[in-house]
């Protein structure tokens, strides 16, 4: 008995094969947006592989963490490459998650029946940011230490649940080795577990519903998924891999100074670029707004923004583009401009 029928009897893979043969992708203007999700997935896979590799040498204790990262950078063969790829791919992944989100938003790909695809995607955005935030602390350097202090402090200012949440995140009142242990556990176990589930759902829903057709332009031409779309997507992956390799080789990620729990924060300290727009917004809000603490107002505003993001498909419904869709589009453009503008201002500001 040959292998094909043997596997077919057990796995029923021919159904998947048939599915892929008949799957098509619409050919539309701005069709490049359809590749963004795949690029994000590719970067995520790179993070899984390089993350597992880093686990071979990384030691998550206050004494050893920084030295073990130095060891990886200086002594392990190609350790500098593996760690730099992990750091750079993390940054590229955050960028592409945002690009993918805005692409899906402007193509209105969240329309019925894809509401849950959008919701799971928004959750994946939050998970990606949580990965970035927790991973940043692991080298246990000065910048990471203060970034974690500030970031968890912001969580601590959330009304009602903030204070207990801060203790839960830090594993105590302060950022200590307990925080490092927690962030390590969150980064390498809890977030990957949750992400696997949500990503699985997200990808399953995409297969279930197929690629979203932009409405109002008649039946689109269709590109067969195999091989046409797959080949184009693999070209995109190849380009990303090339860019990633160039960045990692030309700009290996620095290790920084080992965190000194007693040293003051260095001047001009900023969070990672993808948090700068939030960081700078909180800086700009005055100390008191309508008798409330300004910082809390800002944080609540961001939490509301997150809820709005999750609820997009339920706020803007309807098959055909209507006035509501035009308003949604305008708000989307404003949000994108706000994020880009605040990031730039945040970097120019002293």
């Amino acid at each position, binding site marked *: 008995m040959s292998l094909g029928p043997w596997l077919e009897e057990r796995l029923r893979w021919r159904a998947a094969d048939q599915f892929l043969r008949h799957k098509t992708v619409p050919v539309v203007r701005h069709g490049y947006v359809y590749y963004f999700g795949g690029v994000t997935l590719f970067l995520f896979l790179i993070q899984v592989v390089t993350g597992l*590799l880093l686990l071979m*040498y990384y030691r998550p204790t206050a004494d050893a963490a920084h030295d073990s990262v130095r060891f990886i950078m200086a*002594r392990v*063969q*190609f*350790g500098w*490459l*593996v760690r730099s790829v992990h750091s750079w791919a993390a940054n590229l992944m955050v960028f592409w998650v945002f690009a993918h989100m805005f692409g899906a938003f402007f193509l209105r790909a969240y329309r019925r029946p894809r509401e849950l695809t959008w919701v799971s995607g928004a959750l994946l955005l939050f998970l990606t940011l949580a990965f970035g935030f927790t991973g940043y602390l692991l080298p246990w350097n000065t910048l990471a230490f203060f970034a974690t202090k500030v970031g968890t402090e912001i969580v601590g200012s959330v009304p009602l649940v903030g204070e207990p949440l801060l203790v839960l995140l830090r594993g105590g009142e302060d950022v200590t080795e307990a925080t490092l242990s927690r962030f390590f556990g969150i980064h390498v176990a809890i977030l990957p577990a949750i992400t696997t589930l949500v990503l699985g759902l997200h990808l399953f829903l995409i297969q279930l519903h197929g690629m979203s057709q932009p409405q109002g332009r008649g039946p689109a031409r269709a590109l067969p998924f195999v091989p046409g779309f797959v080949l184009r997507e693999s070209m995109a992956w*190849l380009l990303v891999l090339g860019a990633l390799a160039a960045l990692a080789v030309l700009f290996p990620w620095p290790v920084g100074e080992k965190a000194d729990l007693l040293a003051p924060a260095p001047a001009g300290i900023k969070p990672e670029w993808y948090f700068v727009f939030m960081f700078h917004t909180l800086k700009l809000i005055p100390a008191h707004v309508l008798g409330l603490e300004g910082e809390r107002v800002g944080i609540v505003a961001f939490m509301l923004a997150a809820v709005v993001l999750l609820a997009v498909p339920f706020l803007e419904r309807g098959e055909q583009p209507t006035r509501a869709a035009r308003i949604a589009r305008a708000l989307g453009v404003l949000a994108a401009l706000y994020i880009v503008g605040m990031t730039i201002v945040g970097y120019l500001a002293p």
Partner: protein
Amino acid sequence: MARSPLQITRRSLADYLLGAGLAALAGTVFYPVLRYLIPPPVKEVTAGSVVAAKVGEMQPNSGKVFLFGGKPAILVRTPEGAYRAFSAVCTHLSCTVQYRAEIGHIWCACHDGHFDLNGHVLAGPPPRPLAAFGVTVKEDDIVVTRPA
């Protein structure tokens, strides 16, 4: 017209180039990964001698396992009161041996290997005697040295 199998067409050349390119790409990705997984050599602790115990710390007919150059070693005080030191790594499968006072043997619990107080194999599967170290008493310290 039928082509002979050896004839190179544009198509087969393109396939060949694509395949070779992908193989090269896979190589550049996996080569660093494989090298990364091989740990860099840990600097062997080349301490020539170590203070294993203090004089008076050990009763006759007892043993003590200590670290010598990052590996376990055993210091034995014989019933007659003499000191002997050996590698504590069993020559069979690298378990750490111990001194058993009631039978006066150095004993490996993993597969019931017995060594006498010169490190020679008395019974069990170990193929070679335990490596012996030198022992000298310097004032208060019992110093174990690697044989030159």
